[in-house]
Every structure is written in structure tokens, then in C-alpha cells.
């Protein structure tokens, strides 16, 4: 996709009367960082970029913005919000529509077919970050890192984020404006991360997750970054009743992580944001993908693909599997 086309489209959309702002990606403050940008007019669109560093799922902001009571005498601003989405992000929008978290009329979806983003941590490990912002481009079969004069070719397998390796929806499933040509879709591949854990025995699994969950600092960034965790009144914040205590220890962390993963069963669209933002590097994606796989294999359901579908946990089929029932 050409950057020019993206910026031109964003400028057009931002200038529309009925659009509040366009949420896109812009260059971050240093190194490999990319920050979400909120573009209110055509002039701002020049900041926007789309590169293998655009990992953030911007659909989060559709539900994150606080809805305050409108002061008396003023009118509510019900203009649309335009959001740029990759394939996985578009599934979040679709799932939000399924759950009626947002209305179709509230949002303009700008679709960006995505050949796969890099794993920022892996990247920084292999090619240390510097204070200058660095550009990365997609090439035929990998990435091109442009650092000043220097250009480094990197193969796709070396840096591709785990979620992208498993991705089957690189093209937005829903969009109002589509940028560029669709990219090639890939077949379902086995999720090695999940399989690796499944192959351990119960005690080893327990030990593995104990180690992981014990690291959690309960900053709730995984919850907040998730486009589908948007309850106004989260069960984790509640004190009355207190389902999960606020103390940070292994037991409560497990309860929190299970609650979080479970609330995403049949809803997680595998954008991998929770895993990316976790300051403790807990492999949350594995939890989510395990559930997503069970939902797909056992119940034949895939969230965020069809905006007209019924929500998974609020529907049933009479012949759902029940081999686990005594």
C-alpha cells in the first residue's frame, strides 16, 4: 500500500462533516515506537503511517473513550469515529458489532490489508533500538530496516510476530474504505505455543502457569488494551462482591487471569495486544488462543468474522458437545 494513498484517504475522511477524528498510526517518539494518532483534520493526516511496526489494535479506542453526561444545553457529539484497521483489528470491530458494543453508524472503518507485523521485542533484541525513529518497510518476502544510510534486509520468519504467523485474516473482514490490494491469505497452521503446553502433563502445566502468573503486577494493561474488554463496570474493580481480591499474589493473579481469559472465550480475535503490552511478558496469547481453538474445533465458531453472528456465550446449539458431562 502506498503511504500517499493512505494519507490522502485519511485526510478525506477526517475532513468529512460527520467524522470526529481518524484514529491511525503515527511515528512514535523514538526508535521503533509507533503511537496511535488522533487526526481531526486533513492537515494532521500527513503524520500517519502504516508499517510493520503498527502492531497496536486501534479498535480499542472505539470503546475506551469515556462517555460523560452531556452538560445541559449542549448537544451530544454523535459524529462517527474513523479507525484504521488491519485484518485482526477489523475482526475486533466486527465482534463489537456482534455484541452491540458499538453501532455500525458510529464508525467508519478504513481497512489496511496487512502482510504481518513484527514482534517489537524480538526486533529490539536483534537490532537494538536507538533514539532516532527508524523506519521498517515490507518487502516481497520480509522486512527492510532503514536506519539512516543503512538498509538491512530481514527475513519474514525472523521477526514476524507470533500472532501473524497464525493469522488467517490478514485482510480486513469489514471496511468502508479499503486501502491497497488484498494480501495473500494463509492456511490454518498448528499453534506450536499452545501445543507445547498441552503436551506437558498436568503438574508441569500447573508449574508453568504458576511461574507466569506469579509475575503479574496487575497493571491491567492487558484488560485495557483489549478491544473486547470494554465493560463499564469491570468485575475486577468491584468490591461488593469481591470476586477477585486486590492483593497481588499467585492465587489472586490466577483468578484474575482466568477470569480475563474466560471472558474472552469465543470473543478473542487474536490480535495479540494483551501479550504485547504485558510488562511481565506473560504469554497471555496462549491462553486466549487455546480457548479460541477449542471454540473453533468443538463448537465451529469463530468470533469477529461475521458481524451478523450471535455472540458465542449468549447462544447455544442443542447438539453442542457434552462428552465431559457425567
Amino acid at each position, binding site marked *: 500500500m502506498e503511504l500517499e494513498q493512505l494519507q490522502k484517504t485519511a485526510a478525506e475522511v477526517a475532513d468529512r462533516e460527520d467524522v470526529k477524528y481518524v484514529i491511525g498510526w503515527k511515528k*512514535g*517518539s*523514538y*526508535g521503533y*515506537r*509507533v*503511537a*496511535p*494518532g*488522533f487526526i481531526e483534520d486533513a492537515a494532521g493526516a500527513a503524520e500517519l503511517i502504516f508499517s510493520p511496526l503498527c502492531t*497496536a489494535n486501534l479498535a*480499542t*479506542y472505539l470503546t*475506551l473513550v*469515556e462517555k*460523560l453526561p452531556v452538560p445541559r444545553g449542549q448537544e451530544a457529539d454523535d459524529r462517527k469515529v474513523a479507525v484504521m484497521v488491519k485484518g485482526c483489528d477489523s475482526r475486533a470491530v466486527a465482534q463489537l458489532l456482534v455484541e452491540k458494543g458499538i453501532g455500525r453508524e458510529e464508525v467508519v472503518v478504513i481497512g489496511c490489508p496487512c502482510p504481518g507485523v513484527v514482534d517489537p521485542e524480538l526486533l529490539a533484541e536483534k537490532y537494538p*533500538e*536507538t*533514539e532516532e525513529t527508524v523506519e521498517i518497510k515490507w518487502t516481497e518476502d520480509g522486512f527492510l530496516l532503514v536506519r539512516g544510510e543503512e538498509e538491512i534486509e530481514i527475513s519474514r520468519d525472523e521477526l514476524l510476530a507470533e500472532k501473524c504467523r497464525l493469522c488467517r485474516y490478514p485482510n480486513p473482514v469489514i471496511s468502508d474504505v479499503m486501502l491497497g490490494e488484498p494480501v495473500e491469505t494463509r492456511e490454518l497452521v498448528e499453534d506450536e505455543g499452545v501445543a507445547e503446553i498441552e503436551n506437558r502433563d498436568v503438574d508441569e502445566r500447573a508449574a508453568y502457569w504458576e511461574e507466569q502468573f506469579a*509475575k503479574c*503486577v*496487575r*497493571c*491491567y*494493561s492487558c*484488560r*485495557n*488494551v483489549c478491544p473486547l474488554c470494554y465493560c463499564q463496570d469491570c468485575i475486577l*474493580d468491584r*468490591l461488593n462482591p469481591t470476586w477477585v*481480591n*486486590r*492483593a*497481588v*499474589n499467585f492465587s489472586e493473579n490466577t483468578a484474575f487471569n482466568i477470569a480475563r481469559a474466560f471472558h474472552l472465550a469465543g470473543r478473542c480475535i487474536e490480535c495479540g*495486544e494483551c501479550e*504485547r*503490552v504485558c*510488562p*511481565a*511478558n506473560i504469554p497471555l496469547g496462549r491462553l486466549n488462543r487455546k480457548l479460541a481453538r477449542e471454540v473453533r474445533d468443538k463448537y465451529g465458531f469463530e468470533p469477529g468474522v461475521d458481524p451478523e453472528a450471535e455472540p458465542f456465550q449468549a447462544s447455544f446449539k442443542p447438539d453442542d458437545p457434552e462428552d465431559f458431562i457425567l
Partner: protein
Amino acid sequence: MSAMLLKKEKWPEFVEKLAGKKLWAPGADGDAMRFAPVTEGETPALDFNNTRVPPKEALFPQTETMYRFQLGAEEMEEPQLEDETVLLGVRPCDARAMTIVEKLFRWDIDDPYYVKRRELVTVVGLACSDPGLNCFCTSVGGGPASTEGLDLLMVDLGDNYLLEALTEKGETLLESAGDLLEKADSDAVKEKEKLVLEAEKKIKREVKTEGVPEGLPGLWEDPLWQNVSASCLGCGTCTYLCPTCHCFDIQDETEGFESRRCRMWDSCMFGEYTLHTSGHNPRPTRRERTRNRISHKYSYYVDKFDVIACVGCGRCINLCPVNIDIVEILKKVEEAL
């Protein structure tokens, strides 16, 4: 006591001499992420960049039992804090943060837990020879070898560590190491000074704080707050991982009839933090919360305790999931002033 030298191969022996005290060191649990108690017989490695979770948790644990009691009874049992603790390899910025936070915990009424832990701890610092990308300690009154809050400063001189005792606690520690140490000659001291200068030069990021404490309240309604907070997720990463953030929540937790009142880190970036029971929230959106976080560090704290509550460790920049960069925010503040 003047500066001493410790050969690197004698580092394990040095650690052994500290037996009997509780040792905390970075990454001791096999993960370079945080400070953790060192298991006996283990020698902590000191080749690390700063930990993700600051060592504040050694003095102000993420969850701390204040007292425990049986449900229905009236007796409360307090924890006995008496273990002498040594923190190994604390970066100068984190040690400075301890002195800053201590001002609040000693303000008017002493916080018994923090003050007690602070008294029992000996902080062994490790000067930075290779500061991180987002370090800006030199802009907020610190430096790669700042000694504030430290009892003992170690400088890595290649084959040796240069040890300088800064307080009585530090000297006692050096004395206990005894014959492991050699007196440092003037060359070593010179080398240290050179290293520190070099490290300072490596720090690229800076903030200008002049006029900020006085000026911030005047920017109350400035559009910059909306701009910088638009992408904020409202998570607690920046505050939990900040060495000077010190807010906490108090909760009663019960298991069977055993109950305890404990406190845990809290974050002003959470909506629940200021929410009144009535449903009214004085800081209803991320804009107010971001404004409060920055103002508290750079203005309110300066008013009350005469020091900026930010030590420039760069953690909030490194780990913010959406690249909210405090250096950039302060640049914008400066422009708006």
C-alpha cells in the same frame, strides 16, 4: 573510609560475607525483570540494565499486610519487621527515588512500615556505565553515579569494582568484607570519574524543568492534556513501574476466619481510584488522570517537599504500550508555558 577496590572474582565471596542478612538483587528469580530475595548460596549477577519493576517493592511491597486478626475478635497482630536487608545493585535513580518517597512517608505522621523497612535496609548502588535509551536522570537532579539514598556505591571498573561507603551503614558493610578489599589508588578514582563523565554523555534525552512546577497549574485547561492522553489506555503500567509512585489502596481480605488488612499499590490512572461511592468522579476521564500524574510529579510534590517526584529512570517511557512519553509531554508543557 576512602574508596576500596574489590576484584570481580571476589564478588561471590563478598556476597557470602553478607550472610545472615536478607539479600535482594535484580533478577534473582532467573528473570531480569525485578528485584527479588536472593536464595542462599546464590551469587547475583550484576551485568544487567535496570530492572523493569523498580526496587521500591523491597521497601513498599506491592501487597503488604498491615495487621491480621481473627474475624469477630478485636486483637490485631502487627508484622514484626526486623530482618536487616541489603539491596544489591540498585541503580542511582532508584535509590534517589527512595529518598524522595521517604519524604512523604515521613511527612508529619511516620508511616511505620515504610520507615521501619527503610531503617533496616542498606542500599548498595551500582553506577551506570551504559545508561538506557530513555534515561534522563541528569535533567531531574540525578546522575549515573548519584549517591543520594545510597549507603554504598559500586562502580564497575572492568576487572574491579570500586566501592565507596557513603554512610555509616555502608562503612559497616565494607568493614565486614575486610580483607577482600584493597585500598583504591588515585588512578582508580580517576578512572571512575572518567567513566561517570562518559556515562553522562551517553544520556541523550533531557527535560527542562525550569518554571514547570510553578507553571503547570496554569495549564489546567490547556488542550495539551487532551492531546497527550487521547491514546492512554488507562492501565497502571506507568505508575506501578515508577520508582517514585507511592499511592496505595487498603483492603480487608478474609480467608476462612483469618483476616488481614493489607495495602497494595494503586494507580491514579485507574478510574476507580477517585470514584466516590455516590458515582461522582472528580477525575472522570483519562485526560484528568494524565494531568494529575504529570502535575503530581512535577508540581504538587515540588510544592510540598521541594523535589521533583521523577528520577528520570525512563521506565514509563520504555513500557508504555502506546508510547506516551513523559519527555515529550514535558516538551509540550514547556512550549505551552
